[in-house]
């Protein structure tokens, strides 16, 4: 009788263990596949201050990409500042463990040197990149980033650049894991960063 009870207990325990393992594995898979970006991203070629960058240069560390333009006095600096604040909130040590990349789509006005100066205003670890129209078009198409030059007829700015305002999180192999419009309040952003950066 006692042996039978032990067997039943073992059976229940075993079933519960296998079920929970299956459930959690599925949950992780579900989380990872919630945002499937396998059709986006990939290699690119852009110009940095002192060299040409490709996706290969970002590999080895997770990366966060943000697309904007250096003459943007409002949304872009606000977004880069929010990224710093969000990382501070999650874990300040993460700043040095991530490639933070600002990509200017304003190939008419911005130079690699100017973009690097702009990006590094937000921290020495920031990388500023831009490129020719062809380079920018190729990358924005691959990463599904919208940008458009819009003339401002009565403005001394002459034109502005409408653009996607979104953070792209890439793993250390350069694969897009997810994208975020709000890194401060979206809990999935902190969860993702903790998952890919915590030992």
């Amino acid at each position, binding site marked *: 009788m006692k042996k039978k009870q032990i067997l039943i207990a073992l059976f229940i325990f075993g079933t519960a263990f296998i079920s929970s393992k299956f459930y959690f594995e599925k949950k992780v898979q579900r989380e990872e596949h919630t945002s499937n970006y396998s059709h986006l991203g990939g290699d690119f070629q852009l110009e940095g201050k002192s060299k040409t960058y490709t996706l290969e240069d970002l590999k080895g560390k997770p990366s966060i990409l943000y697309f904007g333009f250096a003459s943007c006095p409002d949304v872009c600096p*606000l977004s880069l*500042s929010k990224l710093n604040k969000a990382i501070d909130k999650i874990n300040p040590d993460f700043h040095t463990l991530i490639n933070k990349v600002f990509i200017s789509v304003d190939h008419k006005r911005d130079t690699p040197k100017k973009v690097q100066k702009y990006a590094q205003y937000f921290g020495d670890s920031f990388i500023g990149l831009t490129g020719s129209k062809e380079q920018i078009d190729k990358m924005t198409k691959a990463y599904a980033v919208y940008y458009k030059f819009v003339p401002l007829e009565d403005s001394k700015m002459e034109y502005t650049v409408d653009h996607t305002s979104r953070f792209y999180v890439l793993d250390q192999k350069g694969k897009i894991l997810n994208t975020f419009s709000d890194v401060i309040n979206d809990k999935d952003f902190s969860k993702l960063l903790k998952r890919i950066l915590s030992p």
Partner: protein
Amino acid sequence: MKIVKRAFLIFTLSLLPLCYAAPPTESPSLRIEKAWLKKPIPGMKMTAAYMTLINQGEKDAILLEVKGDDAEYYEIHTVSMKNGRMKMRQLKEVVIKANSTHQLKPGGDHIMVIQVKKTLLTSKETSLTLIFKGGHKETIRIPITKSMEKK
């Protein structure tokens, strides 16, 4: 005594022009609070200024123009987000409704400061003159703030 009378007469006459002075421009009962200008990022020619405009009057106040000495041009712009896309456009005016508040803030309506002068990088304050419909002007001293956190 004669001298005293003469002095009184001169004093009284000197006050006469005041009686004919033009009436002051009708003030739209505006208060400007929390004004600041974002310190330009080194090497960049543009920045923005923000503030809260409080209209305590019974009529709408309409901001038409901004002037200052520390940049070549000042324009009124607005930023909007639609479908995850950022759009910035120039505005001809900003209406501050009667008895209400209008904020010029990051990510919304703001004053674009174009072709900034070096003084904006070194000064702690700058002056802006806001010109409203009807000719009313408000000149304010505002702090230049480095708001972005470097990491």
